[in-house]
């Protein structure tokens, strides 16, 4: 997302993370809270992690017999980036690579 403005859905996810900086979130909880389906939410989370804006960890739930869950929160750099990105005004839509973006 270097040089690119995030999508509306990404902004929604970032805003949720920014509301509770430092807090770890579960995927399904985020999905319910934001009204985003898994097919939309997870690609956003994956992209954020790819760009080192998001850190992840596995946690063992308290209740036995359940599989460990994946948790997410913004990294320090991710919080700074997200704050700036959410504050940016909206732009136009394109599938081209922006000029100068080599990533």
């Amino acid at each position, binding site marked *: 997302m270097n040089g690119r403005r995030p999508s509306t859905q990404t902004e929604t996810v970032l805003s949720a993370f920014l509301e509770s900086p430092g807090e770890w979130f*579960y995927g399904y909880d985020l999905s319910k809270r934001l009204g985003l*389906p898994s*097919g939309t*939410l*997870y690609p956003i989370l994956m992209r954020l992690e790819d760009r080192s804006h998001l850190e992840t960890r596995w946690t063992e739930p308290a209740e036995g017999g359940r*599989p460990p869950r994946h948790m997410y929160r913004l990294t320090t750099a991710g919080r700074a980036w997200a704050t700036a990105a959410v504050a940016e*005004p909206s732009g136009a839509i*394109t599938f*081209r690579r922006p000029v100068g973006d080599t990533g």
Partner: protein
Amino acid sequence: MRLRHWGHTVARRGHLMVYLLPPSRKDWARALLAELEEIERGPSALRWVLGGGRVVARGWIGSITGEDNMKTVLATLSVINGLMGLTLLGLFLFTDDTPLVVPVLGVGLLIQAGYTLAYMAGVLDAREPWSQRALLAGQTVAVLVGFFGFVASALYNVAPPGGDYEYGPLTIGALIAMQASVALWIFAVQDRPERTRVAQP
């Protein structure tokens, strides 16, 4: 009621699929499956599974194709279509008895190719978002027209009157449909269209 037997079954089958994913996406597939255990049985669980399937499929497709590769394919197909368009116009101008549909198709191919290449090159930036909407609308129409032309030509060639086969319309239909399909494919496999910053005055 918690998702139990059904969730466990899907999760077990899903874990088999995880092994087929690229290493960078395995954790994410496991994460999707783990969350499934927490979801109530019903439409929510089904939506979660369908969405997860989409994510996994994208991971697979993305590891095979890569968006940038597809853009290269699109640019190449656009150039081919443009050359074919010029050929058809040349055919009309320099040969006799060429039906009017030939230059019409040539112009269509040139517009499709020229617009796509111009859009990819950023020439139409100032016209966003209408330039993108026009591209999507045009490519959608092109897929339908190209596909129809291809199928109609193929059916005609099954039993051509007088044994006169028509490969021209078949080829042009295929070219139009292929180029448009790749353009729409790029939109479809993207998580969402990227939005670039608009230069502030």
